[in-house]
């Protein structure tokens, strides 16, 4: 008998492998945030704004480490300097009083009053003209009982165009004058008008002078520009470098802008963060529970909206016992937080009211989800877009409020700068030294614009309805 028998092996008893041929998604799946980021990246304006904000953060935090100049240090040698490269100044000795030139052989008062007194001639510079002092000497004229000295920054075109009246000498024999008034290294035209002691003559003569930038030895040593034992009179040294110029007391603008940014950005970020947080909790609570609680909470929010911000800021300032000359930043922060939240609260409440009626909330509830799970897992993430957008729009508003309050003198106390108070100081010299206003104003504008554009970009990126439209 010839028959084959099949011997079963262990393999035959293994269960079959179930194979499924479900379609594979070749691209990685995108979460809500990844998608938002992708769309934000396509928005050039928003990305540039983001870089600007990052740059500002570096400017504020890292800047003072790299640029270690005391923002309160006054450099009266370089008042209201425009942005420029470091300047060279000659070293001179300490200032010494000058008795001037008074002639003994010439009458102090005219012997007879002439109808026209001729203009003095031979005006010349005594010693060297420096920005520390310019000393003028001239020849006396017949009939003069004194001389008036004028200074202009361009060639005078006539007797009404002589410029600043610097002063006058008290006799016809006093034929010198020392000018120390705010001298800069630039062209000056000094004019002399003789008087009979009371009335001015119709004639004048003019001298052109360009003083040399100078610094006294003592000051150079005090400021650490030269070593203590150096005695190089007449030598040239470099003055301190102010890349963005100086303000009306010779303080470094760059250092002040960095210091000012701290105040501005501190208020600009902390205040919105705090009140948006409070607004979320408040609005979320009102929206989720609804009913009577919602009505009462929202009426209270309406009440807070009606409160005047400036009045509260002043009240807090008094209540905190913040004396004169002390910073008003804390009451400002408090007033911003206490009065700023209703807008966020309303927005969040509206969102929550809408979301809690959605089907997926119902479904989750049916599956047994508790309140706190619903809020954390479903409601908050879905309102996140709105919240972020509010936050980015609240930041520039707060920066602007701080700038405005410091501008009107309610904010920082001198010498602490903030961008707003710097604008306030700069606006006084707007026409003569525009950089003192333009720099802080530009910083405020750019910061506010950057946050606004970023906010715009985020609105678009985070709007889930836009998600599948591209």
């Amino acid at each position, binding site marked *: 008998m010839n028959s084959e028998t099949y011997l079963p092996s262990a393999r035959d008893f293994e269960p079959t492998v179930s194979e499924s041929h479900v379609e594979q998604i070749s691209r990685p799946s995108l979460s809500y945030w990844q998608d938002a980021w992708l769309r934000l990246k396509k928005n050039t304006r928003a990305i540039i704004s983001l870089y600007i904000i990052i740059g500002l953060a570096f400017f504020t935090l890292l800047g003072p480490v790299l640029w270690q100049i005391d923002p*309160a*240090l*006054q450099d*009266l040698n370089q*008042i209201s300097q425009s942005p420029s490269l470091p300047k060279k100044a000659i070293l001179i000795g300490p*200032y010494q009083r000058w008795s001037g030139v008074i002639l003994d052989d010439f009458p102090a008062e005219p012997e007879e009053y002439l109808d026209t007194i001729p203009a003095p001639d031979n005006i010349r510079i005594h010693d060297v003209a420096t920005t520390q002092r310019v000393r003028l000497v001239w020849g006396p004229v017949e009939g003069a009982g004194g001389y008036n000295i004028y*200074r*202009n*920054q361009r060639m005078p*075109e006539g*007797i*009404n*165009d*002589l*410029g*600043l*009246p*610097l*002063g006058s000498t008290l006799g016809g024999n006093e034929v010198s004058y020392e000018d*120390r*008034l*705010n001298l800069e290294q630039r062209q000056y035209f000094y004019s002399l008008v003789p008087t009979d002691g*009371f009335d001015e003559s119709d004639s004048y003569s003019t001298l052109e002078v360009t003083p040399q930038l100078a610094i006294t030895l003592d000051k150079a040593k005090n400021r650490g520009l030269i070593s203590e034992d150096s005695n190089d009179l007449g030598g040239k040294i470099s003055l301190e470098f102010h890349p963005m110029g100086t303000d*009306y*007391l010779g*303080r470094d603008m760059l250092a002040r802008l960095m210091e000012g940014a701290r105040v501005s950005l501190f208020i600009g970020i902390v205040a919105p963060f705090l009140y948006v947080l409070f607004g979320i909790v408040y609005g979320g609570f009102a929206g989720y529970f609804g009913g009577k609680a919602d009505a009462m909470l929202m009426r209270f929010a309406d009440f807070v909206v009606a409160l005047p911000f400036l009045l509260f800021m002043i009240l807090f300032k008094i209540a905190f016992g913040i*004396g*004169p*000359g*002390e910073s008003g930043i804390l009451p400002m922060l408090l007033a911003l937080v206490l009065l700023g939240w209703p807008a966020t609260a309303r927005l969040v409440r509206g969102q929550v009211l809408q979301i809690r009626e959605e089907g997926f909330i119902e479904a989750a509830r049916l599956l047994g989800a508790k309140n706190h799970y619903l809020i954390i897992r479903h409601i908050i993430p879905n309102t996140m877009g709105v919240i972020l957008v509010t936050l980015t729009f609240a930041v520039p508003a707060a920066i602007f409020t701080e700038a*405005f309050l410091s501008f009107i*003198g309610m904010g920082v*106390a*001198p*010498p602490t700068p903030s961008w707003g108070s710097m604008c306030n100081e700069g*606006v*006084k*010299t*707007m*026409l*003569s030294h525009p950089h003192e206003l333009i720099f802080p104003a530009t910083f405020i504008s750019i910061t506010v614009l950057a946050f606004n554009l970023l906010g715009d970009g985020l609105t678009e990126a985070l709007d889930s309805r836009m998600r599948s439209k591209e």
Partner: protein
Amino acid sequence: MRYLIALLIVASLPIQAQFDATSADFEKQTISIALAQEPPQLNGMKATDQVSIFMLSHVMEGLVRYDRRGNVVPGVAERWEIDDTGATFWLREEAIWSDGEPVTAHDFVFAWQNTLAPQTASEYAFILYPIKNGEKVNVGELDPSKLGVRALDDKTLKLEFERPTGYFIKLTAFSSYFPVRKDFFESKGDQYAADVDDLLFNGPFVLTEWVHSASLRMTKNERYWNKDKITLNEINANYITADTRARLNLFIDGQIVQTRLDGETYKDALTQRFRIRSFSTGSVFFLEYNHREDRPTRSLNLRRAIQHVFDADEFVNSVLGTPGNRAGRSLFPVWLRGVDSKFRQEYPAPEIDLDLQKARDYLEKAKQELGVEKIPPLVLLVGDSPTAGKQAVYMQGLLKVKLDIDLKVDIQTFKQRLAKMTAGEFDIVGAGWGPDFDDVMTFGDLFASWNLNNRGRYNNPKYDDQVRIAMSSSDPKTRMDAMGRLQQILFDDAVILPQYEQGVIYLMNPKLRGVVRRVVGPDPDYTYARVIK
């Protein structure tokens, strides 16, 4: 904020200079001016501020007045005699009130009694103290009728002095010495000086229109005894603003004849090619310390330390930066008269040697004296003008760098600052003093222990002694010697820190002539002004 920005743009637009507008009219001889504020008090017995005194001096006249060159000339009084015991004034027949009644000696007696009466509470009552019993009447010890002044008849005024007062004649030009008619004053009651119809005038001009907080108009007084010397027919105060930029724009538009310039506006005036004039106001500005027992500034060493680091020259040239100011060295400004020439030539102010090492030595002593490791932060009280803020920040930087003292800057409005000064709520205060009359005493008695304007409560019997010597003598040499010693005490004790003697620069319509800028008296004085073609 948007309005502010819009305003700034408008302000910076180039505006062409023109003078054909209405600010000075040759045909009509009228001018337009701007006032810094509405006159707060036109009752001459109570007026204390500059604007009120300016207005009053144009519409009223005292016994004497100042001429164009600042000399005392007859006013209502035709002639007078003054000796150590008293004075007699003979009033002119032609002096009449704006309602046609004659100005009599009784009007002066009434006004002076009333100014000194305690219920009037005039802040300037002290200026009448040279009259016998003046102070006693003012404090309520005596009835006003006991004041040492009486009318011998309608046109003769006789008064006795409390003590010899060499400068009395200069006082009688001041607004507190102006006459007031009793029957008119009493018929008006509380309404006196509240409006145009509630005032009587006897000066070169009369107030004819007063639109409250908008404008005032003064018209030539046709009943004024010296009306032939007055050329202007009308002075219109059409604008009330203290803002120098607004005033400059009004001037550029030809709306006002005169405006003052400050550190910033003068640059615009230069580019507009205006003739800039300068004038010394005669006021002295200084930092006054609080000498009260609970203040760190009571320490002489601390004050000396500050004295040795403050460079008045640098302050005037670099911080103030406008021409005309003079570095402060003393409480007494340079224009004051001494015995024969200027006071400061005869009694030079002590020189301060700026010495950082000395200053730090004084500071160490001050710390030991006060028993502190570090001087507590000092409060610097200043006014709310832009320049005041700038000066305060400069001081803050100076004291921090040189002495490591922290200053807190307290910026307050004028009224509030005055209240705080009176209450003593400061360590250092930026103060100024303008002269009331042309004598050293107007500055000298400022820090006497009894003077209410001595806000820091400085109290030094030696200082008081010198003031008494100068007050009770009529010999110029004795008086000036006392004031010279007083100047030295002020320096040695570092009672104040003199900052500057104020000078101002201003623009004046070139068609206007004869305007007088005064150190003492109304400023500017348009009484003798005229408009040329």
